[in-house]
């Protein structure tokens, strides 16, 4: 199998899976089996591609020429490969988790759910592999549309309203800003290709660079930059696996991934740095980080809190891009991985809590830790990783973002990142702390240092839910120790333009 074929195969498997799932809709076991098998197969192919990429291969496939000069092209570079690996790898755990969750929560229309899910993954992979801005834009929209039914899944008025906000904001920003930006780029440069070092330098009056960047930054609504972040909390009406994979990994990461990609391959890090065009974005991202964290503090709904946390964390990645240096790109890309692993765990825990105890509010969780210790231990680990504490993966991405801020001479940004960590502690760790250690509401512990009341049997979520949670929580730890390899890999993201041979 050549690399190019593997690339197409990786896209084809989830696409074909949608049809198989649709066909086996009446037999739930086969249907769920297909989605798991497809996820594993996809991941295997993606790993195979990863190997080639690390060996230096850069496969490229052109599917069709839509208009003269505008082609649908897939070609893989390290950044996209990273995103693809994360999305497809976490699809496996989510596929398993969905089985437990959807059955445990007695959700309706599960077939539609699995169809759209596989489709969304296919779109996410296509975004990861897209070889030019045009292809990326196409699948960006496909991703929006394929996740819309997932958000509206419950079909209640709230779900419909949430989905409307979701679609409205994502569509509005992508059409109003992103498409204009794409076409502008096209008319400036005559190409859309992602090229190392960027394509804009020399083709655009530097005065306009901030404006073009603004069109991109706001156009990529999936990156949830304030003030276009509202869709993310609104999307929390979706079933939890959706929130877990799509709104912690695939969709939002597609957004920030696009951000990184545009920064690296369209503007070029050097060009951005020299023109200082991204300065304003640095401040906006910093503001988003802090404001979203503060809002998260005030949310009592568990998923809403996590959603705002996501908004805040996504801006870390945007910040990495906007700081416009190599460490920023490395830190940002690393954060894609680290945050994905942490946040998916958190969301899956939220889902497990819902399935097992039917609790959705933070204030209802007191004392629940003793009934669901594994879930809450996983929650703690993931929280620590998100906060950026060792020995969990999140520490490293924060390290590189700080390095990047230091390189850019932005002491204030360092301060912002530090403050954000503290806010993260406040809104994330308080959840497991209360669950484990606060006395159940309404009764004060009769004494200090009361020994843990012997657990009267665990009431954990189904095994299908629990195992993925434990896996991803372990992943948070593994990532801390596996950092050397990831760093080496990220160094291969080309920052400088290729010198002519």
């Amino acid at each position, binding site marked *: 199998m050549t690399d190019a074929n593997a690339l197409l195969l990786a896209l084809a498997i989830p696409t074909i899976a949608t049809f198989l799932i649709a066909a086996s809709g009446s037999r739930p076991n086969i249907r769920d089996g297909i989605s798991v098998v497809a996820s594993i197969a996809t991941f295997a192919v993606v790993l195979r591609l990863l190997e080639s990429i690390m060996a230096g291969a850069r496969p490229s496939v052109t599917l069709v020429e839509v208009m003269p000069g505008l082609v649908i092209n897939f070609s893989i570079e390290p950044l996209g490969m990273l995103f693809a690996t994360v999305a497809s790898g976490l699809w496996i755990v989510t596929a398993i988790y969905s089985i437990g969750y959807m059955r445990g929560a007695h959700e309706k229309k599960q077939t539609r759910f699995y169809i759209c899910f596989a489709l969304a993954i296919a779109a996410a992979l296509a975004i990861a592999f897209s070889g030019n801005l045009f292809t990326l834009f196409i699948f960006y929209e496909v991703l929006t549309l394929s996740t819309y039914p997932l958000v509206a899944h419950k079909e209640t008025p709230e779900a419909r309203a949430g989905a409307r906000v979701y679609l409205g904001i994502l569509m509005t920003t992508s059409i109003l800003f992103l498409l204009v930006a794409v076409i502008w780029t096209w008319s400036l440069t005559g190409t859309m290709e992602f090229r190392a070092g960027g394509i804009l330098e020399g083709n655009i009056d530097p005065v306009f660079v901030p404006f073009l960047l603004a069109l991109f930054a706001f156009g990529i609504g999936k990156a949830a930059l304030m003030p276009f972040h509202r869709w993310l909390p609104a999307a929390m009406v979706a079933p939890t696996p959706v929130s877990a994979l799509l709104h912690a990994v695939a969709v939002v990461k597609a957004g920030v991934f696009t951000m990184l990609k545009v920064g690296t391959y369209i503007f070029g890090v050097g060009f951005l740095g020299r023109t200082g065009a991204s300065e304003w974005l640095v401040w906006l991202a910093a503001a988003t980080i802090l404001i979203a964290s503060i809002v998260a503090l005030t949310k009592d709904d568990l998923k809403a809190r996590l959603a705002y946390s996501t908004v805040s964390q996504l801006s870390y990645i945007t910040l990495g891009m906007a700081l416009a240096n190599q460490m920023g790109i490395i830190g940002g890309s690393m954060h894609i991985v680290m945050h994905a692993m942490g946040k998916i765990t958190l969301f899956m825990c939220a889902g497990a809590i819902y399935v097992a105890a039917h609790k959705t509010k933070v204030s209802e969780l007191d004392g629940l830790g003793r009934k669901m210790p594994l879930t809450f231990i996983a929650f703690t680990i993931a929280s*620590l990783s998100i*906060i*950026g*504490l*060792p*020995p969990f993966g999140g*520490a490293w991405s*924060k*390290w590189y973002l*700080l*390095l990047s*801020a*230091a*390189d850019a001479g932005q*002491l204030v940004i*360092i*301060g912002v*990142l*530090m403050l954000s*960590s*503290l806010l993260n*502690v*406040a809104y994330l*760790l*308080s959840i497991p*702390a*209360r669950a*484990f*250690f*606060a*006395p159940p509401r309404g009764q*004060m*512990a009769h*004494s*200090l*240092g*009361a*020994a*843990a009341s012997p657990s009267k049997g665990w009431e954990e979520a189904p095994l299908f839910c629990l195992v993925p949670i434990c896996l991803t929580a372990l992943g948070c730890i593994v990532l801390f*120790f596996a*950092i*050397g390899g990831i*760093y080496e890999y990220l160094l291969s993201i080309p920052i400088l333009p290729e010198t002519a041979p």
Partner: protein
Amino acid sequence: MPEIGTPALVYMVAALIVPFVRPATLRQILLLAVPVLGLLTFWQLPYGTYGTFNLMNMHVGLMRLDALSYVFGLIFSLAAFLALLYAWHVRDTVQQVATLLYAGAGLGAVFAADLVTLFVFWEGTAIASVFLIWARRTEGAYATGMRYLIMQVGSGVILLAGIVLFYRETGSIAFSRMDLESPATWAIFLAFGIKCAFPLLHNWLQDAYPAATITGTVTLSAFTTKLAVYALARGFPGTELLIYIGATMTLFPVFFAAVENNLRRVLAYSLNNQLGFMVVGVGIGTPLALNGTVAHAFCHILYKALLFMSVGAVMYRTGTSKASELGGLYKSMPLTMIFCVVGAMSISAFPLFSGFISKSLILSASADTGHFFVWLALVVASVGVLEHSGIKIPYFTFFAHDAGHRVKEAPFHMLLAMGITAALCIGLGVFPSLLYGILPYAVDYTPYTVTHVVTQLQLLLFAGLAFAVLIRTGLYPAEIRSVNLDFDWTYRRLLPAALSGVAYLVQGTWRFASRIVMGRVDSLIAGVYRAHGPQGPLARTWPTGSMVLWIAVLLGMTLVLAYI
């Protein structure tokens, strides 16, 4: 990774195993074995740096064994052992695991040869230790734990920021002597300062230690702050600023301790005050002063643990640690009382007790270098120490007004732990060379001179006399149940008030703005609907006449254009 260096690993691995060990006794034995095993990993090891490797172009060294880290490694292992012994009765896995992780992280940080490793374990102590507070499982402990955690993690992130800047400045992450000259080192200094409970950054200590579980407080008292002292001694020896910070630290807690009712908080203030001595020693930075700091840290861990243990034992039996609720307990718990008195005499630096041989090093160093006022402050502080730790703790617990508690003596394992600790306190006091032999610098100091013994006894006994006089005249402040404001008022009262004020303002503005905006949007939509809705003029199918009118208008417009 290359060969395993740090003893922290022993603790980490044990922490993974412990929850699954049954029965309970086996688990306790395993717990006690951990510090011993940890100690064995570096007991006979030659000095040097181990566990080095290259991580992303940074030179990481997991374990640097030299004179300074050796002493701290030793005392941390000892403290861990004693704390675990004292906690023999605890069946709560959370506390056991947290204790192991906490001690392990403390050791890891002490042995860290580079700043990144230091940071990792630095945060490790923060995270692990908070569980010892939360494990009390009350609402108050939860809230205190959150505050404590934020402070500790705050210290960690400031350290991280400092490290990042430092790395960018120097290209190295080696942890060695630094100068206070750039934002990087200031940040690192500040991070150390938070953990070391510098004045105004100290309240987490008084807040958290009384809130932890009985055994948790004993563990807490050993590691975090002494780790900070170690880090200061390693990174900022001879920084003059530290002298003044330290002197302030020795003085102000004295007054707070005198009026504090909660004995564990009294001990926390006392801890703060003792840290001041060590910080002064670091600030002076001469070999004598540094020796003093290290020795004092060593002795301090022991006697402070002993005091916390004895108060803890009382609390274990009576359920309270408030001076106003205690008294006359020597009748029920005489052995505990004796150990407590040993601890009190050690901390007050009576001759033949450990405090005497360590504190005098620092006092001599300050006098040697001619810091008269600092020296004076330290002497006053010594009197203060006697007041709150030497007299107040044992007196109000075991003597004074009999509160009527008739309880059993402390359990055997507690007595054992206290006994060993007390023996060590006396042993070190009687044979100072034991400790002097392992200090980082060669010691040329004799604590037991006539002058020193006599003057010290004068100081202490006259102060005791003052106490006796004040008690007999009724001038001594009564123990009253209360909380006393400290700097934490700023972030427990002022800041929330300010924030809620700001929040109120923001919310009001937001509501106002959004009402206006929503009003505008609504009227816009209404307007659009009026024009474009099914009944609106634009959607109505007009009579033919008006259609023709439009044609005329358009024609006219275009024609006008034609004529201009």
